[in-house]
């Protein structure tokens, strides 16, 4: 019991980072992570033996994110359309602005491409793990990675934006 809790808590920080980068919104990310862990607890006994905890939790989060996303698309009016959240961190304003720029950059990618690049490049999952989490063949994962990289290169080298300019 104890070790299980510790194992999950250790994953939560990674889940929060992934969710934040995925949604671009710290508060929404934390709600998503909470739902993920609650779902995991309720399904603990259904978990396939030998399945590693971290990819399993990421899979749950990904599924919840997708269904929440579909729900949001169905909602007709979005009153907060022009309100964006700048998440508060215990860090300097410069870091915060840099984070905002990266989140903006990521938000320019389609959901599935953003997920692919985050899982592989930021969370360090292998191609096999990432394609399992996303429930797609590895070839599909690779082409999403390719498209994500192409788009990011294009965005970064757009002259006026200078979005990836290091602040320090």
């Amino acid at each position, binding site marked *: 019991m104890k070790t299980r809790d510790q194992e999950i808590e250790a994953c939560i920080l990674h889940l929060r980072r992934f969710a934040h980068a995925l949604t671009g919104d710290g508060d929404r990310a934390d*709600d998503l992570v909470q739902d993920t862990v609650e779902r995991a607890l309720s399904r603990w006994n259904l978990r396939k033996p030998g399945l590693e905890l971290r990819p399993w939790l990421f899979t749950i989060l990904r599924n919840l994110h997708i269904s929440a996303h579909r729900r949001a698309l169905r909602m007709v009016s979005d009153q907060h359309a022009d309100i964006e959240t700048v998440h508060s*961190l215990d860090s300097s304003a410069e870091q915060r602005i840099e984070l905002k720029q990266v989140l903006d950059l990521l938000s320019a990618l389609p959901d599935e491409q953003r997920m692919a690049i985050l899982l592989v490049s930021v969370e360090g999952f292998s191609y096999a793990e990432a394609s399992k989490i996303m429930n797609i063949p590895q070839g599909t994962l690779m082409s999403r990675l390719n498209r994500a*990289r192409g788009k990011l290169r294009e965005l970064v080298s757009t002259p006026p934006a200078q979005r990836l300019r290091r602040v320090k």
Partner: protein
Amino acid sequence: MTQGTRPIGEDDLNAYVDGALDDARRALVEQWLRAHPDIRRRVEKDIEIARHLRETLAPLGDVSLPDRFRMENLRARRRQRWAGRLRQVAAAVVLVAISGAGGWILRGQLATGAGAAPETEVVAALAAHRVFVPEKLHPVEVSAKARDHLGTWLGNRLGRPVPIPDLTDEGLTLMGGRLLPGPDGPAGQLMYQTASGKRVTLYLQPTRGKASAFAFARKGDVGTLAWRSGRLDLVLTGPIARDELIRIAHVIRPAAL
């Protein structure tokens, strides 16, 4: 290319970027890239972008775990939620029993319940900003000369300590402040001015609830940055850039805990 080896493909290039190649293959890819400078530049750019993403996002995963995510708290909330849902279901069952198919409307209520963003105070702050900023004769009710009095007076009316942040280092001189009718009672407005005469206001309204992140919105030429300190909802409004608003808000925030 050496005979008998597979030609270098996009999959190799991706795996090179992600450090997923074994030593032999990586050496081969490096050799190939030396002969293809265009692609090498592309691949280097990809590596640079991946590193930037990783480094910038790293702090998000390197913070202390909020209480909300302690397993005992998650478990307790899960139990509460279950109890709540059972009550809702029970209520729905009763309603369906009473009104037949009419109980169907409850369906919609069961599906909602997400937290709302602070919006009414942004609307109130913008309205007050637009009314008092162009004012020539009486932009403020109590001038900056009576700074201490302004703080005590607003504090008494809002029912909690009200900060009068010193923003001179940010190039903003305090003009004074006034009491306003807010959506749920008294609210306050502080007004500052830059050397070039641009006016920035800080709207303050009592609240309860946990501290929040900054929410930025833009309406025409003015930007607003709203956040919650735990005791006050604050909205910073002015004809300045978002990053500038964030910078100023960082100076105000510690004073408004």
